[in-house]
């Protein structure tokens, strides 16, 4: 649609790291607040930016443990999405490391991380527009060799609208429906750790509640969840850990409750 031949959505040259090359040797944890060193998934002291551009992340640390929900909030352009991409290996880190279950995965390519059990819903371009809804979900299960029909049924339960639209090209869906497909795709992976970048943007209140419910359920099964949210108050309510990022660096860290209770945080980042 846009720009004719030139414009292929999602062709941002700077963000994909197909081969998983890191430029620096990872170095171990630097003892940020909370027990990052032992956490299940850690993005440790990450510094980096897009392509050859300036650093966006400055010594930023994120972590999450099994059964926990970690929520990242912050102003627009703070680097939340960038941090997520960095954890997923879609960005060359200039410093810092990413560890999964004690293992250093800084140099793994994104698709290898998927194989290791990481699932990710990016903020933009998070569906296959020309594939049908069902095919989108199937692609989520691409690395699974087992029968995924049950998971599929669960997803349809969670988002009934998708079942009606299963044969429709995902690009023809409404904004909120697309978002549901995106989350559904990631859930299909049955990941060991789930990363969500603004999963609730554009979804209606009723679906948002369902979604949060589902996220809580998932985390109860022991799967760590790392998510970025602008619906910060709801999100922090269910969060075990909360991170406030400002200009690519950790500004506040604490449990969800602590952050919600902090008047500075409320005023500056949660809309009062």
């Amino acid at each position, binding site marked *: 649609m846009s720009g004719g031949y030139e414009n292929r959505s999602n062709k941002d040259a700077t963000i994909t790291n197909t081969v998983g090359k890191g430029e620096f040797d990872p170095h171990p944890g630097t003892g940020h607040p909370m027990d990052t060193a032992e956490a299940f998934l850690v993005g440790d002291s990450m510094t980096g930016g897009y392509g050859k551009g300036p650093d966006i992340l400055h010594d930023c640390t994120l972590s999450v443990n099994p059964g926990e929900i970690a929520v990242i909030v912050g102003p627009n352009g703070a680097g939340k999405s960038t941090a997520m991409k960095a954890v997923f290996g879609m960005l060359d880190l200039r410093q810092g490391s990413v560890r999964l279950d004690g293992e250093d995965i800084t140099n793994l390519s994104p698709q290898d991380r998927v194989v290791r059990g990481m699932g990710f819903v990016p903020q933009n371009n998070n569906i296959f527009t020309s594939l049908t809804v069902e095919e989108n979900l199937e692609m989520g299960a691409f*690395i699974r060799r087992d029968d995924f029909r049950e998971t599929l049924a669960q997803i349809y339960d969670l988002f009934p609208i998708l079942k009606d639209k299963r044969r429709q090209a995902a690009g023809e869906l409404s904004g909120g429906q697309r978002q549901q497909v995106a989350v559904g795709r990631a859930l299909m992976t049955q990941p060991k750790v789930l990363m969500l970048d603004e999963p609730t943007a554009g979804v209606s209140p009723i679906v948002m509640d369902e979604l949060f419910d589902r996220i809580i359920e998932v985390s109860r099964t022991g799967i760590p969840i790392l998510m970025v949210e602008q619906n910060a108050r709801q999100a922090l309510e269910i969060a075990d850990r909360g991170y406030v990022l400002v200009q690519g660096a950790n500004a506040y860290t604490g449990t969800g409750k602590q952050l919600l209770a902090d008047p500075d945080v409320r005023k500056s980042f949660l809309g009062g």
Partner: protein
Amino acid sequence: MDFLNAIVALSNFVLIPAIAYGSQLALGALGVTLIYGILRFSNFAHGDTMAFGSMVTVLVTWWFQSMGISFGPLPTALLALPFGILGCMALVLITDRAVYRFYREQKAKPVILVIVSMGVMFILNGVVRFIIGPDDQRFADGERFIISARDFKEMTGLSEGLAIKTTQGITVVVAVVAVVLLFWFLNRTRTGKSMRAYSDNEDLALLSGINPERVVMYTWLIVAALATVAGTLYGLDKSFKPFVYFQLLLPIFAAAIVGGLGSPLGAIAGGFVIAFSEVTITYAWKKVLVYLLPDALEPSGLVQLLSTDYKFAVSFVILLIVLLFRPTGLFRGKSV
């Protein structure tokens, strides 16, 4: 009787050639459409890839023929085809490694890839001519006709002949089989779906655990097979001449586009649209009408809508009209 004669004349000069030519275009267009659909660029080197694959087939065929190997009534070239396909696969994989991969990693715009593929086209052009020369090469053997015009006349006692060539038969069958297989592969198999997913959104495919390099490799392998089959069948039917494979590119692209880029069914439909519009619009209906009409009404002229000088022009006009009504082709193709 006259009615039969009319039908036979029409079939012999219009329907059969158009169906055969349409299938030839369709086979070529399948390769183009696949590259477009999955790797997202118009591959100008496709014609020369076809020439290369067929060249290998031709060379192997000659070798077989010199060894006295034959394939009964069918052309020996069919036996040599697998070797041609292998040769062509090797070629495209090497080109991909050496050339295209770099631009993929750069996330270059499609138009850059188009121009790059022109570079590849020039190189292949030289390579093919270097190996086999620019001349016409004959490698067809076996039974030339399923039924020849003369036999047909003798058999039926009609005054019009009907000729069906072996190669025409094979081409049509192969084209149908190829499109069915491809359609099934892309829409039903895991690998096929992952190829479509990759073409849709590379980064997200990565996040789903799809290995892009593998998708690309499969695509090239299929394309190589299609190109070689298309090129060889065309060569068998007409003759092998490197220059013509370049010229084929234009109708092939037209077929792929009018059918809807990225759609295998569209490639077939497009092939037939182009072939039929080339063959029918400029046909002189005199022969058919002479049989059908009473003597008194017999046409004095040729009853030709347009002279054959304009056959390409006409087929492009038809293409334009189709596109004006279906801006992304008959089968709603992609448009990057």
